[in-house]
């Protein structure tokens, strides 16, 4: 009987310590959550960037030898953060650079192709594909 009426409760110091510990731990854990969202976004970006870079290469491989000869300069495309094509260099998030270079030492009509997707804001190369193509004569 006496025990029930003893009314032992939490001491204040206990409560304060637990609040302190919990807040520190939750801050750390929430940071983990945020990092995981960032990582997910990064992996999605790398995937989509790879697809755009590969598309550029595939389009180059579909050309004829005359069309390939016409492309002298490097081609550039600018994308915003939603992967829409834009023209403005300042607000662009991603830039796709495609280079086509003829290597006569190997053969005439042999081109080396380099396709690179760069993150403008961090100046980081997201995806880079290097390949070659031989534009042989077709019937």
């Amino acid at each position, binding site marked *: 009987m006496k025990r029930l009426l003893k009314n032992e409760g939490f001491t204040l110091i*206990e409560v304060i310590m637990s609040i302190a*510990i919990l807040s520190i731990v939750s801050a750390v854990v929430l940071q983990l959550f945020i990092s995981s969202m960032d990582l997910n976004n990064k992996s999605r970006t790398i995937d989509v960037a790879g697809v755009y870079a590969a598309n550029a290469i595939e389009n180059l491989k579909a050309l004829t030898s005359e069309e390939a000869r016409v492309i002298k300069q490097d081609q550039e495309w600018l994308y915003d953060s939603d992967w829409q094509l834009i023209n403005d260099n300042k607000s662009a998030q991603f830039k796709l650079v495609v280079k086509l270079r003829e290597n006569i030492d190997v053969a005439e009509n042999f081109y080396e192709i380099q396709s690179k997707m760069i993150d403008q804001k961090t100046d980081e190369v997201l995806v880079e594909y290097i390949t070659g193509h031989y534009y042989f004569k077709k019937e």
Partner: protein
Amino acid sequence: MIRMLRSERGSTSILVVIFMIVLMIFGLSILTTSISNTRLAEKKRVWLSEYYLLEGYTARELAMLDNIITKNKNETVTDLENSLIDEDARSQVYIKKIIEDLENQGYWVSLLESELEKELVVYLEIKENDSEIPKHLSLDLKLIIPDDLLSDDDFLNNANFEIAGHTEWQKPFDFEESIKFEDPFENPFEEPIVNE
């Protein structure tokens, strides 16, 4: 000692520790998931990069082959002009020449003859060098044999080959450390011992 255990003081701390552990588990699990996602994306990127590199080497081989074919075509025309060869049919001369030249250089060539037409096929296989499971690119090229009725200029300007097949393959992963079980039915035809 028992009184300390019964006194239930500081039970908040235990609750706090348990709560902490649960939170950490959640945080770590979601982080592991995201890291694996990033790693898979990276793997895909690396695979495609190596594939395109391999295609680059293939294009180089194609270019060299094209040079050989063009050279042989030129030689065929000049040989026939200078009447160094007895045979009339230009395509016959060309086929013989090209098969000999390609086989000397180590290419795999095969001539398929049917009543209607002849088919000259070259098979190329390019393999990755430094990889555990190397990628292979197999090219099936059909060499075009121009008609005898064409002029010499048309013969030379005609297309050299067609890509009949451009396939990529990899040997499936071989599990080296596979578990081997003893065969319980090792001697299926052994007569069972019957106790009389």
